[in-house]
């Protein structure tokens, strides 16, 4: 088997007295949709922030496409091909949708001060390319008609999709989505699911934090379950769903015993 796209080992992060992550390790293969679930406060977003360079872990390593992520600055992580969205949407609210996506092209373009002032033919071409690509991406996520709307004024679901378009503009190999379905209704979630599948089909590996279990179980190839900053279980959705420890974490100890006895009773 080839080397995984992302390989994390022993990641730990502490906030004062709270051990937010302790010894988290996992690996994501190229082309996978990898789910990250766990109860509230389990450390999912902290893990995201550690991976993308916003937090510096106390220990652990994290190799991404042959490079070490730990110690990289957030913009270097993005440049390395690892893009993300945020749980609480963080768009550039006062800018238009198209400008948001154009900013996402920053890491893949080069115009400097002098080029921008002199507006050389190369810079003009680059600018035209940025704009064309941004329009493509807005169409790709299905909000092409909203290009000139102010990001803040977009409906909630469209803001989520705009964030995905902006992240895709950085040409990631791995796209990390932090609760993209939060606050969406059932039909919006279906559209989102189709979008994530399309993104994967186009060759981008997806890491997904999500509370919508139906979405996670239907979409992900593998799932990692976190609880109290530790890995509780990891595997295919069907396996994880049956894991008594996972059921206990979500529903309590009684439910786990019930779940464990149920299959035994069903098969005499």
């Amino acid at each position: 088997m080839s080397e995984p796209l992302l390989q994390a080992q022993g990641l730990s992060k502490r906030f004062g007295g709270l051990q937010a992550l302790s010894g988290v390790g996992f690996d994501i293969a190229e082309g996978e949709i990898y789910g990250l679930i766990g109860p509230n406060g389990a450390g999912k977003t902290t893990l995201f922030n550690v991976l993308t360079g916003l937090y510096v872990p106390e220990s652990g390593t994290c190799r991404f496409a042959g490079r070490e992520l730990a110690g990289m600055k957030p913009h270097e992580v993005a440049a390395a091909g690892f893009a993300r969205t945020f749980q609480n949407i963080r768009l550039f609210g006062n800018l238009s949708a198209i400008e948001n996506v154009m900013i996402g092209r920053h890491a893949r373009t080069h115009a400097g001060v002098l080029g921008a002032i002199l507006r050389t033919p190369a810079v003009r071409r680059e600018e035209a390319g940025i704009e064309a690509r941004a329009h493509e991406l807005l169409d790709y996520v299905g909000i092409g008609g909203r290009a000139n709307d102010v990001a803040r004024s977009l409906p909630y679901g469209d803001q989520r999709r705009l964030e995905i378009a902006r992240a895709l503009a950085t040409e990631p190999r791995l796209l990390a989505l932090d609760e993209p379905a939060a606050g969406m209704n059932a039909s919006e979630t279906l559209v989102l699911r189709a979008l994530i599948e399309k993104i994967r089909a186009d060759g981008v590996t997806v890491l997904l934090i999500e509370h919508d279990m139906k979405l996670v179980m239907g979409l992900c190839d593998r799932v990692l379950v976190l609880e109290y900053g530790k890995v509780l279980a990891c595997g295919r959705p069907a396996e994880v769903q049956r894991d008594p420890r996972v059921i206990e974490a979500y529903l309590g100890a009684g439910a786990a015993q019930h779940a464990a006895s149920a299959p035994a009773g069903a098969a005499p």
Partner: protein
Amino acid sequence: MSDPTQVCAAPPGRAGQSRTRAWLGVLAVAAVLAVLPFVLGLAGQGWVRIFNFALLYVMLALGLNIVVGFAGLLDLGYIAFYAVGAYAWALLASPHFGLHLPFWAVLPVGVACACLFGVLLGAPTLKLRGDYLAIVTLGFGEIIRIFLNNLNAPVNITNGPQGINRIDPFRVADFTFSRAETIFGMRVTGPEKYYYLLLLLTLLIVAVCVRLQDSRIGRAWEAIREDETAAKAMGINTRNVKLLAFAMGASFGGVAGALFAAMQGFVSPESFSLMESISVLCMVVLGGMGHIPGVILGALLLAVLPEFLRAVVVPTQQMLFGEVVLDPEGIRMLLFGLAMVLVMLFRPAGLWPSAVRKRELARTGGGA
């Protein structure tokens, strides 16, 4: 592909008709700007001088606008860069050190020094935001002024509070800007010559601002202003981009400072007080942060209006009451404050705020 109208304030039009109108507008403004000093000169050379200072303030406001308006970094010590530019010119082109370097040597040195100080201020404040950044920049502005005030001992560098006198004027070969002379049968005074020089530099700075704003760099500044964390996650090296904003803003201040020294022939630390920093900030806020035409308007208004009041209020009172009841100099700050309060109440985004929301981005085609 080509889009020469972008330098002007008019937005790219829907059709050729509005483009023609935009060009007519540019021509009209150009004609007005070309004859302005002679018109002002009819009211007295003092008015030309006042307008020259207004142009210096436009440069300063545009420079500060890059830092405050584009990148969203509140800077209360901006006048320090003006001081650095002014002293660079004063030290390198005056009898103080006996140096009389030509403008093409002094101006780049002044700009480079201002840039360097911009980075010096930017580097330690990279992680500060809002109020904290404002306090540090305020301190920085005062530090520069106090240094200039005290660097006359043990080695006399800045000549302390007495300032530096008899500074060389701007001179290109034998053409001296401070002297009146007759060109093509027309008598052109010193302030009028400086006017054209300042206008040229101001237009240059406006063009640089417009192009930077609508570029990869300008977008990165906007991203930082809107959400720094998200900007980082989008691959923007916020450290470099912020330092660039400080350096660009400071360099405009440096240009303005150098010309101030050349035009005045005299610099002293008291020209660079905190009040000046706040005035320039007021121009940016009053005009419309981040909107280049608005900032220009704000700078012109706040620079010319007090002088206008001075010239109008005193004679009016003398005519009406036979004496000066209210000294405009005394109520100047009051009017200034009142104007700011009114603007904040009724036009919180500034007199001429950015129309970026309405901007139409052509869906197809390379240009426009």
